[in-house]
């Protein structure tokens, strides 16, 4: 343990917060670049751990320090300030940092001219710490701390720099996810009570050795944790906070919220509910629990898709699609380790591994695609000063760059190859079909989820058609040629002048950040092997 890589990843953004603020005082642009640079450094540091993750025995890289003296255990033990990284956390942390990087560059143009920008960038940096902490720690206390830490900057950014009734939306975000976090805290408390440890891995192994009288407690711990984390995921019954918060947030924050923050819920379910508690519950309960998740997933996917299909607010279309995609991820989670009773213990069957690879990969691909989607939509709003898609149209000729990136984002979200989301959805479905053999319950959910992809295609295409294609409302008055051969109506300068300003494509920093995500979406779509290798290296400590 020569160089504390993970500690640096955690501390560099933490320490930089005041400096970001001070830089921002002088020039907000430098602050943005500062945040981006920190994200880049963190990406580099995380990448440097990848060989160790892939090659070490446990496929895990850890750094541990003694931290808080524990109260319960008699001898002088410390709750470890333990950071670790494995394939799953590496993938998710990497994509989060990429989004932070992109969002801060994007903010240079997008947030230009707004007030309190130094604070904004400092908050962005704080959000980085929260995200990294959630993804990189194996200590439950630190996890909870970072989990709540994500919420603070999210609240302020949505509230202060959001649109319309923004503090109300921010309050919704805060209250709902905080209420969820209470359940998480309950779960964590129960884990500590049951096992006397705040370390995930120790807790996991000692949970399995508990006497049978604790079975009910373990069951409820699992339910509490999953329910609390699911609020962050905004799956169907607890989704209410998402559409307002996502659509009223400034675009970079929407991208982060939709891209990684809600997916952090999925990550935490994998890590806590499944990684720690799941191996200790009974097979019957596990099966029922997973079936329940599958049902929630279907309802969420259809609900999100249907609402997205008729939403008229440009960002609400995307926000509902985030709900739909949380449905996919939830479905993937429900496939997790479908319990096969093998001598009383749970077995992580190989097919389920494909589904879980797909699920984690979907967190990554969805983050990239949804980030791109929100940033493009933000660009459109920024340039047109409109947000009702019925008033848009024909932007492809005025904003060709945004049109291309928006179309790619929409197609990726709809699950069309060769874009990123396809490959992860494909893996989820292949995993689902694997499980059909073991558990015939999954036939109908899988079929329904397949049908849901048609709806996701429908709302994605609707978005592209309404926003980028067709004629702008100013042009409709212009005479339409009888056949298609020169359908490009001449621009209507008069109409545009009447509108007040000419619509042009997004500025360069925004273009650059969109371009980064476009490249990422296409590359992951064609060659997802880097992330797949990382995710596949994870063993979960669950063995048959």
């Amino acid at each position: 343990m020569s160089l504390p890589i993970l500690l640096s990843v955690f501390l560099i953004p933490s320490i930089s917060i005041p400096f970001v603020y001070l830089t921002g005082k002088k020039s907000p642009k430098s602050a943005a670049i500062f945040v981006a640079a920190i994200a880049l450094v963190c990406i580099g540091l995380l990448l440097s751990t990848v060989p160790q993750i892939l090659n070490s025995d446990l496929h895990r890289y850890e750094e541990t320090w003694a931290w808080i003296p524990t109260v319960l255990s008699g001898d002088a033990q410390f709750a470890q300030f333990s950071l670790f990284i494995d394939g799953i956390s590496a993938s998710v942390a990497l994509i989060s940092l990429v989004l932070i990087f992109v969002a801060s560059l994007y903010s240079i143009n997008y947030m230009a001219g707004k007030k309190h920008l130094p604070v904004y960038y400092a908050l962005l940096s704080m959000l980085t710490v929260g995200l990294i902490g959630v993804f990189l720690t194996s200590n439950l206390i630190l996890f909870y701390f970072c989990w709540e830490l994500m919420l603070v900057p999210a609240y302020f950014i949505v509230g202060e720099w959001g649109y319309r009734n923004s503090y109300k939306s921010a309050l919704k975000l805060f209250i709902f996810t905080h209420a969820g976090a209470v359940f998480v805290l309950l779960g964590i408390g129960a884990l500590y009570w049951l096992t006397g440890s705040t370390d995930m891995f120790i807790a996991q192994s000692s949970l399995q050795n508990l006497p049978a009288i604790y079975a009910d407690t373990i069951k409820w711990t699992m339910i509490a944790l999953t329910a609390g984390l699911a609020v962050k995921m905004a799956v169907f019954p607890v989704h209410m906070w998402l559409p307002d918060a996502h659509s009223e947030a400034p675009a970079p924050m929407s991208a982060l919220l939709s891209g990684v923050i809600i997916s952090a819920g999925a990550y935490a379910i994998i890590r806590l509910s499944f990684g720690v508690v799941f191996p200790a519950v009974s097979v019957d309960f596990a099966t029922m629990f997973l079936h329940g998740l599958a049902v929630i997933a279907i309802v969420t996917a259809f609900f999100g898709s249907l609402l997205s299909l008729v939403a008229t607010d440009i960002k609400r279309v995307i926000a509902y699609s985030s709900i739909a995609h949380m449905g996919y991820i939830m479905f993937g989670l429900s496939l997790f380790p479908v319990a096969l009773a093998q001598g009383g213990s749970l077995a992580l069957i190989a097919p389920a591994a494909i589904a879980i690879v797909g699920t984690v990969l979907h967190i990554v691909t969805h983050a990239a695609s949804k980030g791109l989607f929100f940033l493009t939509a933000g660009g459109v709003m920024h340039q047109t000063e409109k947000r009702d898609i019925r008033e848009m149209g024909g932007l492809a000729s005025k904003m060709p760059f945004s049109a291309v990136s928006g179309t790619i984002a929409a197609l990726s979200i709809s699950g069309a190859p060769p874009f990123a989301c396809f490959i992860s959805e494909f893996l989820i479905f292949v995993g689902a079909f694997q499980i059909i053999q073991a558990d015939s319950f999954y036939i109908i959910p899988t079929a329904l989820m397949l049908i849901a992809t048609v709806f996701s295609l429908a709302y994605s295409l609707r978005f592209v058609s309404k926003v980028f294609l067709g004629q702008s409302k100013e042009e409709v008055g212009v005479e339409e040629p009888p056949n298609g051969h020169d359908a490009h109506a001449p621009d209507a300068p008069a109409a545009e002048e009447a509108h007040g300003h000419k619509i042009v494509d997004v500025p360069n920093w925004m273009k650059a950040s969109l371009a980064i995500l476009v490249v990422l979406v296409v590359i992951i779509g064609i060659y997802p092997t880097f992330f797949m290798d990382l995710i596949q290296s994870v063993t979960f400590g669950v063995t048959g």
Partner: protein
Amino acid sequence: MMLQEFSAWFVWVLPLIASLFVPVIGRYTEKGRNYFVVAVAIVSAALAISLIPDVWGKHEAVIYTIPWLSGFGGEGLSAGVFIDPLSVLFTVLISFFALIIAIYSIGYMKGESGLTRYYYLILLFIGSMIGLVLADNMLQMFIFWEMVGLCSYALISFWYKKPESIRAGVKVFIMTRIGDIALLAAIGLLFLMFGTLSFRGIINGIIAGGFNETYMIAVAFLVLGGAIAKSAQLPLFTWLYSAMEAPTSVSALLHAATMVKAGIYLLSRVILIFSVAPALISVLNEALWFPTIIWVGTLTALVGASLALHTTDIKGVLAYSTVSQIGFMMAGLGAAAMQGWFGSLYHMISHAFFEGLGFLIAGGLIHAVGTRDMRLMGGLRNAMPLSFILMGIMVITTSGLPPFASFFSKGLIITSVTESGGVFPSIILIATTGITFAYCFRMFSLVFMGEESGYLKLQRVHESPTIMLIPAAILAGFCIYWGVGEPAVANFLGVTIFGGDALGIIYEAFFNIETPIFLTLLLPIGIIAYYSYFKRYNGIRNIAAGKNPLSTMLKHAFFFDYTYDRVAKGITGFSIALTRVENALFARLPDEGAAKISRAAQPGHAITLKKGFSGSFRNYVAAAVLGFILIVVLIILTFGIGLGGA
């Protein structure tokens, strides 16, 4: 062998890579861009042709792979090319057509804006389509399968300001997606059974008998579902008519010659794979899979032909004709016999020639007269003599008159359907050949015969430019001589499945019951068609125009689209209701009032509306950040207690 590997990769990778350069070149020179695309198409076609000798008559496929998805299915999934006569046959056809269309586009698309996008998509399509037929595993094939759909969507919506184009693009994409999920499910089941997605792995698995009969039947039907949607068969055929919003060059390439044949490729590939285990074939036969294919194909052939007889849109005739002809191919594949399988592929090629020719001529016509409505045409034989002759060739080859290719291929198909026990389907198919003749004749006479319409007298009608006529003439040449190519194709494919003999069967085409029936059928239909459309005798036309069940059905295209519209409307209505409930329940911000971002949220006005909050804002944040920093400091300090724990 080196050459084979090189060609098999680059024949599709080259267009894909080259497509990225189109925007770059297009920025500097438009002519250069067009010639670049033609050059790429030429190289691609040359590479495709270079594949022919090595596979001529070979049974075993040659596979070259590179690593792709590691760990997927144990040993991982490689990307690869699967070279056998079937895939090479399609490769050559696609690359040849791509070249024809690349040349034709120079003339046809002249003066359009957005051509860089057009050529980019054309190259992307060529690469994807060849990638589809050369893929060596189901996932790779599926990715390209979707990518050609994507290109099709983008090209149909090429005139993206026209509402009809946008609607058509969306409709096509969504309808084909319905088939795609069936195919995806089939892939999932295949992976479940064999633990791999590579064709070779699946073949080995089937030979080893490691298949579950129920799953296999499900796979077969799901694959059929995918093929039905992609190849515009009943009940998902209506998208092909909507796809006619695309530029005619695109219709010729995607919606006549290549993309709609993806379903035929898929089915013939799958049948080829299944046929390694005769037991499996009989299982599928008992599960009525093959009869289902026959019936789907037969009914589609009939429905397509009858709609072609009714529509007044010249591209609509060709679209429905494509639907109908692909129905023939389907029926042939469903016969589970060597003749059917071969006849279907052979018909696929001849159809590409004559339908492609039809579209190329139609494109010239639409350019010349500025409309797609055939009622506004007429008497064009004088103004456009070359198009007149070429269309004449198209009509006689499409109708399947004896010395031409489609006579033999339809003969093979009908014979094999009859022999497989489908008497009713073969009767319908024979009737359909008659209708085919009628709709070709009708289109021909409406466009070229009779008097010029009043509308045309106002137009300055001109013959198509040479650059559009040359590709058409090449296709016409193939149309005429393709009939003699049958032994060569049979030799080339060289496959013997279902115990059939490739060479022997071609002679059967002459000596079957179908020939005399067809010839006797031609006479009355020819007379009726002649009087109805050429002599403008009103008997038949009145029936078609009058109020009777048949004409109502035809007018509404058998109510398929009507039903789909109702379903779509129902879903939208449900969604709107759901949104209302949701908004009311959770006190959403009004969606409707969101017309404009309030100026307050614009740069420079950020805080004005929130003054009350603004003052304390800084303090809140400062407190939060300070508290956080304190904690960080505490964390660092606590390290002092016990550095280096574990």
